[in-house]
């Protein structure tokens, strides 16, 4: 989190994480396509010539003023392909909240789990774990015939009972609810931390 008090800006960094082609970029593209131009930056997409994310996608969103404060949400995706491990680590620097975009197709369950463990590996490097960090799960591609039953996905990926959402990102289903919840989780986590600090001082 970055607070620029002179400008009353509060920056939160949200990263969309998940295996390759799970729909991280599709989330940002949908958000970009539907939001009021006055509230968003350009959508930056750093891609390979094969149209795959090589570094990250970026979109900044603003919402209205909150008692004079201006929250800005910096949304990033990471490249999902296995060999871009270092790039994912760079993108997670300073992250405040994570949307884990899982691919619902049955054949992707191993990749979903491997990438989730990869995420925890990176979080641990900065002293965090999946248990003590604000994140939400999005089960994307729910419209595909090979989609794993929801209960199975919950059992296989949602060990910590974080909020989870079914989604079809290109159509916008679940996109907004996911984003709103991760922001809510980040703010709750900051408030819980502050309350903890107050209790320690008392």
């Amino acid at each position, binding site marked *: 989190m970055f607070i620029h*008090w002179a400008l009353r800006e509060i920056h939160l960094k949200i990263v969309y994480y998940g295996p390759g082609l799970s729909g991280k970029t599709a989330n940002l593209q949908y958000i970009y396509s539907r939001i009021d131009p006055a509230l968003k930056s350009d959508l930056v997409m750093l891609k390979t010539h094969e149209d795959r994310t090589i570094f990250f996608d970026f979109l900044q969103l603003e919402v*209205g003023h909150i008692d004079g404060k201006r*929250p800005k949400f910096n949304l990033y995706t990471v490249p999902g392909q296995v060999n871009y491990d270092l790039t994912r680590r*760079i993108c997670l620097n300073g992250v405040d909240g994570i949307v884990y975009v899982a691919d619902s197709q049955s054949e992707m369950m191993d990749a979903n789990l491997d990438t989730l463990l990869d995420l925890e590996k990176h979080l641990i490097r900065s002293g965090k774990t999946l248990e003590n960090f604000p994140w939400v799960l999005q089960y994307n591609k729910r419209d595909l015939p090979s989609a794993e039953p929801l209960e199975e996905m919950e059992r296989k990926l949602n060990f910590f009972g974080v909020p989870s959402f079914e989604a079809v990102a290109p159509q*916008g289903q679940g996109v907004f609810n996911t984003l*709103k919840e991760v922001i*809510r989780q980040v703010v709750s986590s900051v408030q819980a931390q502050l309350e903890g600090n*107050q209790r320690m001082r008392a």
Partner: protein
Amino acid sequence: MLSQKQFDEISDCLSELARKLRVTALLLIDSGGRIIAQHMLEEWKVNATILAVLTASTHAASREMARLLRESSNFKMVLYEGEEHNAYVSAAGENTFLVVVFESSVALGMVRLFTKRTIARLMPVLNRQDAPSVGMDQIFDNRFQTILDDELDRSFKEMG
């Protein structure tokens, strides 16, 4: 959290640098790509938010490159040479960078000289821990989440 006084001092430093060089844009950014202060020619309509994010990300990548090349620290500066403009990025401490965009007719040596002086002036300001004028608990008070929820609903109402 940067105080108003620090922000004003930083802005003064950037204005002075802009006066001395024919700069098109000056951005002081943190390693997360957030803009701390900026000075930009009005007619140069470039999205500073994106410029800051790209610069910070490139710098993060170059830090990994430096590590691979067994450099003991990150590269101290990066220069992008263009037809019309150049961009000179230099570290101002561990987590802050100064981005100077200038016309390619301006001598690089002069840019480096004045940028170095400016960074020397900025460092004590950036390193200073001013007493915060507002507490985090005042920023994230109980109303914050409620109003934020309403604002998000309003902003995304057409997204479904």
